[in-house]
């Protein structure tokens, strides 16, 4: 009896320590990722210093490396993706939660969640074979003939209609994050207590007024948090972009021209990089991307935590 008691206690300690050890291992992994990226990036950072972030030259032959082209591509494609993704996902979420007839609700919601699970390489491949040729043949000539002639934004849309380029990559990225963001928005909107909405409807508010004055104020921090999560995805996405961005290391004003993002540079060049400085510069790019997504996640988390804190006070 006593013996089995001590055995139980020992096993208790062993089991508790095992779970704690694996949890701490997760922490160690992140520390190790940070360290290995820093060590890997060190030669490049030491050589170029801050110049690495602001230089637009990326030349493996002369071994001059600057991250500006990749940073610019990453940010611009993500902005384009958000411009498309946010309003469309918002519209879809409103449609599912407020407009859709009950029998259609579940099928559409499930379909959107399933689409969010499709691997990004599929989006990239479709972009390369189907969307880019279509876009280059039909939309880009039209863009450069109309928007390309306008004074201020003209240079953004001028140039040959190649099909592949920064704009195409941004659009594919936008299409890719629509299902993800729409399902997050929908989850958020469904959190709003029906009583609140019903009271507003009861005093005669229209559906749009309910959304604007009840649903959005109630969920606004969560909505911003969800947008940040979507942005984090867009910044770090590799395959959907690599297929269609064109892998060019020049800084172009025109969105129709090929470019590069941080992740597509890594995907295209990492295994072929010759020389320590080249590899190290690519790892430094990875480090920048990691820091960028970390900041975005941190802000998203902070906002979502504030939302749950508020919820706690309310109920």
């Amino acid at each position, binding site marked *: 009896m006593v013996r089995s008691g001590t055995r*139980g*206690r020992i*096993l*208790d300690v*062993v089991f*508790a320590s*095992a*779970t*704690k050890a*694996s*949890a701490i291992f*997760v*922490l160690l*992994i*992140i520390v*190790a*990722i940070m360290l*290995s*990226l820093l*060590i*890997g990036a060190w030669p490049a950072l030491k050589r170029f210093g801050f110049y690495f972030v602001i230089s637009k030259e990326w030349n493996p032959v002369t071994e001059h490396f600057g991250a500006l082209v990749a940073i610019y591509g990453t940010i611009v494609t993500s902005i384009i993706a958000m411009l498309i993704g946010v*309003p*469309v*996902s918002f*519209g879809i979420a*409103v*449609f599912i939660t*407020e407009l859709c007839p009950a029998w259609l609700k579940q099928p*559409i919601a*499930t379909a959107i969640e*399933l*689409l969010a*699970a*499709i*691997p*990004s*390489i*599929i*989006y990239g*491949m*479709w972009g*390369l*074979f*189907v969307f880019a040729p279509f876009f280059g043949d039909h939309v880009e000539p039209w863009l450069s003939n109309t928007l390309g002639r306008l004074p201020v934004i003209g240079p953004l849309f001028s140039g040959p209609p190649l099909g592949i380029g920064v704009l195409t990559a941004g659009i594919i990225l936008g299409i890719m994050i629509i*299902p993800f963001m729409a399902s997050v928005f929908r989850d958020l909107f469904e959190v709003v207590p029906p009583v609140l909405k019903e009271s507003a409807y009861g005093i005669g508010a*229209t559906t749009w007024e309910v959304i604007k004055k009840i649903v959005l104020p109630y969920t606004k921090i969560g909505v911003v948090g969800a947008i940040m999560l979507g942005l984090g*995805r867009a*910044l*770090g996405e*590799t*395959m959907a972009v690599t297929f269609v961005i064109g892998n060019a290391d020049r800084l172009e004003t025109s969105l129709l021209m090929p470019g590069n993002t941080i*992740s597509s540079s890594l*995907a295209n060049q*990492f*295994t072929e990089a010759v020389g320590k400085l080249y590899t190290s510069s690519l790892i430094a790019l*990875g480090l920048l*991307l*990691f820091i960028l*997504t970390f900041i975005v996640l941190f802000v998203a*988390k902070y906002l979502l935590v504030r939302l749950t804190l508020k919820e706690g006070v309310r109920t």
Partner: protein
Amino acid sequence: MSVIKNININLYRKRRLVNFLVLACSVLTTLFGLFWLVWLLETLFLHGFRYLNLSVFTEPTPPPGQSGGLANAIAGSVLITIMGVLLGAPLGVLSGTFLSEYGNRSRVAPIIRFVNDVLLSAPSIILGVFIYEIVVVPSGHFSGWAGSLSLALIALPIIVRTTEDMLKLVPNTVREAACALGAPRWKVTVAIVYRAARAGIFTGILLAVARISGETAPLLFTALNNQFWSSSLNEPVANLPVVIFQFAMSPYEDWQHLAWAGALLITISVLILNIIVRTFLRTGK
């Protein structure tokens, strides 16, 4: 009186109009979003099924200009994915257990939770670079193991998160009842809590499988590719995502056709896994 009535009617009409316009926009955006996704799936299924035949499953990847299949890539993918899950799942389930069962009184738990979210949102290509740095460079060659490790890093945070959530769904009264019978803490967790949350934990693992089976970016620097059958995970191993990437980007039409067939296979398996997860969750509740 009549003035007030007029103003109200005008206001009412305006509100109705704004409402109508916004809701019309909502329907339009839904159609817009669905349009792209339907277009994508349509091309994928059309091309995929056209090039999907028996030799895809029986023959290895061909050199340019010859016929072949994807057999070695399919086998490699399955192997790398299974190994990735086997490496990631025990660690993930244990960490999730810690967060749910022992985390309340611990000051480490919130940090682990945050770090887990960082890992969850880290770009997968970064994880590939990390494994390249710590496995491929020291060992001097690309290998299937490196690929499995990078996939395990992607699966890990998903499993941690779902395990914690699922264990927290188990009512505390169940734990208390077991404790009252004199069961030690580990036995409560293993024999009672795990059993109650079995379906949920399994679901989390399946979700992780679905997530990593289409993952491409980290495999580019780790498992690389192999045109032939690999005899062990200690050498570069062919895998579907990387084969799709290389074949789709190639100028050879045969290769591109195989890439479509591979893309269809991956999409179908990911969708089936997700549907299984969904039915599991529904029956679990």
